[in-house]
């Protein structure tokens, strides 16, 4: 599950009177009395993904005016609020021209979030979007927004009424779902393993520093422990820095809506892939279990980029190669934006009244468990009843009538891949689904997540510097550096709690006093 990291509730909430509310006088010595409105500045791609002419990147927070000045070359005054201005948009560091586009300035509180905000309307190509997002991420005090953060800030600023808040939960849920799938996609593979490995090593470093702080006075924990940490931290720094400098940025990230074809063996999944891409991309044979690995192909459906994957038929197999294929198939379904579940219509019960229950049961074997957020009723599943030409016409019509608007079941389309009957209707349904998915700003926009990763990695390296800086002067502050680095890395790989660190301490050291 995702860690819930939340912004400030304070303005919206009547506060419980706790002892914890520091009085200004008591805090004066250490914690600045300055109000906490100096929130960080966030940015995100706000327009939908897909083939669009114009993309909108939104910036919100106190540094918004700085961002405008730096990236739109506005050395003098800012433009009047809410007025579009055509500017050259450049990289703040290299001054390289990124795009020519419209910029807008919104002075708080007259903005969506209630904070100072800016918008960049740029050309919609992925290269331009990525370049602008990366340029924004390189500015100090500016970071990519977390899921639903713009909306949340608007909520805290009192910009949303309570009725709108009802919808907010669902909105955040939707965004989070999209992010979860995306994170899964990226964590799968080399990059994921790399981050996990860093996180593990950093955890050990922290555990060893903490052990030295909390126990070395009473226990046999030699100074050598710290020397090991020194070299581990240095090694990590080097690796992360090298990774950040690498222009290829690891593996190529896929773009587009991920559509996955899944189902039992011999239902006609590969035939569907071939039908959709209008070429024999996958081998088709009457032998069950022909497809063993994932077959991918890029498609354009209604103007939107789609990555279509054909997967191995799901069945228990004694063949280890096929078993691996089934594992990959299930994993791919879990990461999918849209799953096409293909069913052999000749296998349907002849009594149309029993079909709904049959399909329900069938879906539960194909789709991941409901905790993963995907249910049969979800709008992320389509049922394809293939081989319709082999079913008597009358039975098909009665079944169709039975399945129409059936709550708890996704839309079902009868289709014959061999005769192409029903293909038009199916394409219409598929196209509208893909379109909806592309309206989801986060699906298939890896550059945004990528920019987020970059920002967290950079902050992680900075924090590790603090370790070296204070290593000999103040170990508490040095440890703080490692903790902070782990927190930033944890934004990518998952939060690390104090208990986890203690577990490592007690595993690696015998603490006896």
């Amino acid at each position, binding site marked *: 599950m995702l860690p819930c990291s939340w912004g400030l509730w*304070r303005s919206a909430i009547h506060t419980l009177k706790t002892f914890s509310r520091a009085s200004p006088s008591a805090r004066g*010595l250490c914690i600045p009395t300055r109000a906490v409105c100096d929130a960080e500045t966030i940015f995100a791609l706000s327009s939908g993904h897909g083939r669009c002419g114009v993309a909108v990147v939104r910036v919100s927070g106190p540094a918004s005016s700085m961002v405008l000045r730096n990236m739109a070359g506005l050395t003098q005054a800012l433009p009047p609020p809410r007025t579009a201005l055509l500017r050259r948009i450049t990289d703040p560091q290299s001054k390289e021209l990124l795009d020519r586009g419209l910029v807008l300035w919104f002075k708080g509180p007259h903005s969506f979030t209630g904070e100072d905000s800016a918008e960049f309307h740029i050309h919609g190509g992925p290269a331009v979007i990525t370049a602008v997002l990366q340029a924004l991420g390189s500015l100090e005090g500016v970071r990519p927004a977390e899921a639903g953060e713009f909306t949340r800030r608007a909520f805290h600023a009192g910009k949303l009424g309570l009725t709108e808040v009802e919808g907010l939960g*669902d909105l955040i849920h939707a965004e989070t779902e999209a992010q979860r799938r995306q994170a899964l996609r990226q964590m799968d593979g080399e990059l994921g393993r790399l981050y996990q490995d860093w996180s593990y090593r950093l955890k050990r470093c922290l555990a060893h520093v903490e052990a030295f*702080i909390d126990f070395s006075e009473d226990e046999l924990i030699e100074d050598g422990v710290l020397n090991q940490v020194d070299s581990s931290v240095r090694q990590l720094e080097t690796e992360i820095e090298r990774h950040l400098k690498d222009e290829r940025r690891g593996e190529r990230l896929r773009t587009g809506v991920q559509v996955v074809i899944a189902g039992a063996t011999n239902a006609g999944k590969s035939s569907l892939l071939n039908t959709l891409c209008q070429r024999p991309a996958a081998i088709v044979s009457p032998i069950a279990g022909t497809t063993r690995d994932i077959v991918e192909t890029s498609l354009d459906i209604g103007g939107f980029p789609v990555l279509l994957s054909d997967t191995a038929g799901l069945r228990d197999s004694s063949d280890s190669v096929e078993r691996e294929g089934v594992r990959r198939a299930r994993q791919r379904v879990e990461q999918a934006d849209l799953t096409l579940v293909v069913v052999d219509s000749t296998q349907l019960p002849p009594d149309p009244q029993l079909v709904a229950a049959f399909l329900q049961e069938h879906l539960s074997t194909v789709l991941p468990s409901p905790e993963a957020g995907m249910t049969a009723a979800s709008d992320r599943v389509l049922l394809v009843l293939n081989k319709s030409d082999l079913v008597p016409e009358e039975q098909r019509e009665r079944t169709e009538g039975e399945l129409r608007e059936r709550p708890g079941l996704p839309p079902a389309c009868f289709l014959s891949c061999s005769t192409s009957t029903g293909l038009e209707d199916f394409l219409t349904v598929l196209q509208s689904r893909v379109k909806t998915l592309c309206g989801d700003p986060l699906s298939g926009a890896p550059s945004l997540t990528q920019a987020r990763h970059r920002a967290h990695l950079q902050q992680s390296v900075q924090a590790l510097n603090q370790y070296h800086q204070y290593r000999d002067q103040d170990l508490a502050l040095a440890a703080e550096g490692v903790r902070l680095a782990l927190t930033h890395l944890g934004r990518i790989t998952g939060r690390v709690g104090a208990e986890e660190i*203690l577990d490592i301490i007690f595993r690696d050291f015998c603490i006896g006093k």
Partner: protein
Amino acid sequence: MLAQKLHLLRHNVLSFVSSRTGSDLTRRQYDVIVVGGGHAGTEAAAAAARLGAETLLITQKIMTIGALSCNPSLGGVGKGQLVREVDALDGLCGRAGDSAGVHFSILNRSKGPAVWGPRAQLDRERYRQFIQSELLSTPRLTVLEGSVDELLVSQPNPEEPGHHRVTGIRLVDGSHPILSSSVVLTTGTFLSGSLFMGQTTSPGGRMGDAQSCAGLSYTLKETLGLRVGRLRTGTPPRIVKESVDLSLAQLQAPDKQPTPFSFLNTHTRCKPEEQLPCYLTHTTPGVERVVRESVHLNCHIQQDAKGPRYCPSIESRVLRFPGRRHQVWLEPEGLTSDLLYPQGLSMTMPPELQLRLLREIPALHRAEIRTPGYGVQYDFVCPTQLTPSLQVKSTQGLFLAGQINGTTGYEEAAAQGLWAGVNAGRTALSLPPMALSRTQSYIGVLIDDLVGRGVTEPYRMFTSRAEFRTYLRPDNADLRLTPRGFEEVGCVTLRRYKKAVSVRDGLQEALMALQSVALSSTRWREKLGNISLSENKSTTLNGLDLLQYKDVSFEMLASAFPECLSQYFEYSQRLKIEAVYRPHCEKQSREMERIRSEESLSLPSDMDYLSLPVSLSQEVREILDRVRPNTLGAATRLPGMTPAGIIHLLNYVLRTGQRNRHTEHRNRSSQKEGEKGQLCASNIPISQ
């Protein structure tokens, strides 16, 4: 008559003071009753009385009030921070430590002031005497010897959450009930406790004391339906000092100048030159052999109750990390005691084998045992059933503190005791309960960890548990806690408050004075001699910036600007620490504010999550229903909780809260109370 059955301490000690002398003997109604006279109980009773509540402390044996049942020491890394905080809230243990200490040292001296660990070896006798005389001179506090048989429980106050309300206690001797508005239970290891030595097992919580608490266990488990778990701990044999060859051990000297625990003390009772040393020695392969040979004779070690990973018996250390040398500290038990305490040798094997084991260590080759070591297994109440004020969620007025909540250690017990006493007192005086934030104190971290996450092994404080360690320092505990302890909580006496305020103002002035002296870095180099400054020559630095540098001390600055700085000499160490940590604490302030605001939104404990009319998934409902988080902050930390769920929850509480605020306002304005418009969400009954 009740009075004849009670053995009041008044018979033994002349200095007994009470606001209602005479009538106390027959008194049967108190504001607060504290059960137990250990570290938690004494702090709880003293805190409740300081708050203004008529308080009764009931203990099995008056003479064991303030006894150190295990190690003769106080403080350490993490634990020392707790002692400083208890002292800042006017608790007893800091001053008792200063009075009883015979060997003072600051641990972690080389690792940065945030993790310094003030620690002292104690004279057991002096510690007990101090605590006892302190309790006896506390107004509104009565001490009674007796065993509690049962808790008296009645219908709850319908205005507040809970299924029961505590109304007092009944003693074992069957006398009249003693009534009270709140009860604090600090029964330590006495809840279904059993003692283990070798193959023998006997009921009890501490060797030499009565067993008791069976009735209390019954009330807690059966009547109140509280979930309990089982934990174990142990204590080492006590060794006759004369029989130890100390020349074969390494001498560990105390600090030359003892640093007192208490903010009120400038020096300790023990003079620097009177301090006693500790000795360090190590286990040998022979020790491991004895352990292995005796496993089959050792019930405690074979049984599967959760023992701690950090204070394990020598048996489990040897079995878990074989082939290693383990440290053994030989600690003095007091100025006049003829015993040594072998820290690190807690064991539960049969006594004759204990002797064999000891004698495998060179310095102990002819050691004699005065009392053998033994193990204890005991019940604890799963602390997730408590609120952050340490009240049992289901039972109004019932508070728990100390080992009964699954913690280990004197300092952890004292900290909880103080806070439970504060809230028991506040409840009795009809004041709203209070919570301590984990951003402000180790006590807050301790309680939040306990009630938010529960325990699986005895909980001990480590500095690594505190997210804001660089702010929660031993040096500034008074500034963090004392002013508010007086102004808001009411557990701090005027004398201490005035002292803390004057320190705060003095430091503030000194910081301003430091900031007022600004020079270019070139000029600073001229003034202070050859110091290395990383800034370029023309950068202007003020005194506070400069003090951040490792090689710069306040004394150096004061000698450069004597006219404006020399008057602050007494604060030189604190100013140096403040200068180094200040920038880091400022960076953390946003995160602190976030946690604090989440902590401040409390979720009613009687919320019916399963039928709440908001959009929550069944899975999330079940998680919430099972854990019943106290605050929104705790809810966000639950594994499995979704961001959307939090938003819905927030929205729901917000709406119902506002509705209730309107009614609250009406009630308030009629009472003409100016309460800043803030209200305690935990007091709001949520109407469906």
